[in-house]
């Protein structure tokens, strides 16, 4: 029934990046809250905000830059919880290219994810005053596909990686960490919030929906904390839920371990300071900022306040 059904749209395929939700599902945490939760896997052509707008899901996971951009586009999404405290996004470069600092990016080729995931990179570069249109003083940007081949093939000098996934893919390909140099957004001071839970603003006027979300966030956070504590079990739960049968255990355990580091600092409630840093980064986008004005009402503590007490 309406009051207890929740559909969650992920932003990528089934993997330990979303372990908390699968654990909550598998361990019956949702059930214990009386919820009937459907987790929709994502993929390369799924824009979670659009799914939300179309009514295909009640809640979505999204990176905050993308969510705020959607908000400016006229799709009022609101952050109701933020299980990820820390950003896992980084650039990974070959050390033998001689890159040691951001300044050295000039004249290089860098792989970037697009599809709404390019905002952090673009903000960073514009803060550094580096053009993204190529040339001697700018970087040449490649739209990176779904693998790390551009780096391995040396088509790109650097590519975007997540600490928990693509970086591991590079290592799995036989590369030693010493061959690489990484630039974490977190360390560069341009970190933006990742993997928050968002809903449509209108829905928050509906007490039934709010109640549903309160229970959902509570159970999800329970799932996350369980996953952090039991990475191997969590990874296996993710594997059970992976219908492609192509994931392997070692990679998921590693991913879960890395993800645990990112979620560890969060109890689910959005840290307003993090939010403000994210907004500031995005607004600082120079001539072409990701968002043009300070958003309003883009987050609420209402759900987490109720959920965590």
């Amino acid at each position, binding site marked *: 029934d309406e009051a207890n059904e929740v559909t969650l749209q992920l932003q990528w395929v089934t993997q330990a990046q979303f372990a908390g939700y699968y654990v909550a599902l598998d361990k019956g945490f949702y059930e214990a809250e009386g919820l009937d939760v459907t987790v929709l896997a994502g993929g390369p*052509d799924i824009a979670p905000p659009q*799914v939300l707008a179309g*009514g295909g899901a009640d809640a979505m996971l999204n990176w905050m830059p993308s969510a705020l951009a959607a908000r400016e586009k006229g799709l009022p999404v609101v952050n109701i919880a933020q299980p990820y405290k820390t950003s896992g996004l980084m650039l990974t470069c070959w050390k033998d290219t001689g890159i040691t600092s951001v300044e050295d990016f000039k004249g290089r080729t860098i792989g970037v994810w697009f599809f709404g995931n390019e905002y952090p990179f673009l903000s960073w570069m514009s803060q550094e005053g580096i053009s993204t249109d190529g040339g001697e003083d700018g970087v040449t940007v490649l739209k990176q596909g779904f693998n790390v*081949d551009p780096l391995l093939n040396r088509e790109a000098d650097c590519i975007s990686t997540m600490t928990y996934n693509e970086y591991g893919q590079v290592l799995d390909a036989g590369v030693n960490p010493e061959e690489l140099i990484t630039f974490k957004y977190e360390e560069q001071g341009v970190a933006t919030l990742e993997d928050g839970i968002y809903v449509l603003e209108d829905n928050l006027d509906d007490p039934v929906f709010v109640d549903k979300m309160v229970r959902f966030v509570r159970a999800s956070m329970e799932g996350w904390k369980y996953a952090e504590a039991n990475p191997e079990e969590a990874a296996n739960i993710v594997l059970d839920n992976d219908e492609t049968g*192509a994931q392997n255990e070692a990679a998921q355990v590693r991913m879960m371990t890395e993800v645990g580091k990112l979620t560890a600092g969060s109890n689910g409630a959005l840290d307003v300071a993090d939010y403000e840093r994210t907004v500031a980064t995005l607004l600082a986008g120079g001539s072409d900022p990701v968002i043009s004005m300070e958003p309003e009402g883009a987050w609420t503590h209402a759900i987490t306040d109720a959920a965590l007490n």
Partner: protein
Amino acid sequence: MKSILPVLTVISAILLFWVVCVPPMNMHLVADQAQRDDLVVTPDTPAARQEFSGAGLALRNAHLIPLTYTFVRPRLPSPHQVAGEMYRTIIGQKITSKRSLVYHGWVTLAPTLLGFLIGTSLGILLAVGIVYSRVMDKSVMPWAIVSQTIPILALAPMIIVVLGSMGIQGLFPKSIIAAYLSFFPVVVGMVKGLRSPDAMQLDLLRTYNASKSQGFWALRLPASAPYLFASLKIGISASLVGTIVAELPTGAKAGFGARMLVGDQYGQPLVSWAALFAAALTAAALVGLFSVIERITLKRMGMAAT
């Protein structure tokens, strides 16, 4: 049957070419790895090796060539690697297992067949409309052509969201994409087929004062049978491609398309290659099935004389 030997010959030639290509294609990666494993590699830095072509590097490092055939993360896997992966995932697994390509094949096949059914029915209906109505002929046909110039992978996510917002999920959205790709060859073929009766065959029915529907069932439809089968064979493989394309924006959960994507993302090229070949084999089998049905039907209709 007469084709077996020629096909085998061509396949052998392609395999040979393939095998020859493996060392140059993989040599850079293999050399990088060999160096990490403390083997002798010339030249001895990756950056220096970038200056050489794959073939040039292979000639300089002949001792590494065998490694190119067994490399775990090849740019071009060797044929036996693909065959091995296919064996493991087709024969070596229970067909209900998520690791079985048979299971994924079925996940892809079901929407393919449904989509093909929808696309074919729609295509035939449109063709009938176009043949019997001047207005439809003149107004719909150009747009049917335009529809095929629209990149489906761009439309697919939107179609899926719109259907999703109507609460339709699972098999059906993929079938719609499959249908979108398969209706066109059917329309084109059936319009040709339904128009294939010559003036004399049509006039014969006029002398009987036959009705339009009698003309359809007794003349136009049977006359279009050969065209229909030709279209069906194109349509079914288009439908399969449509489903695989649609597997990405529907949440790449299972099916050949999901295997290709996930294999690619997690650095398992063999998973992708096996899924790719399995998909092509499935298409070949479906086309073969229709060829058999075609032969039987046309024979019973007395049209397979020569």
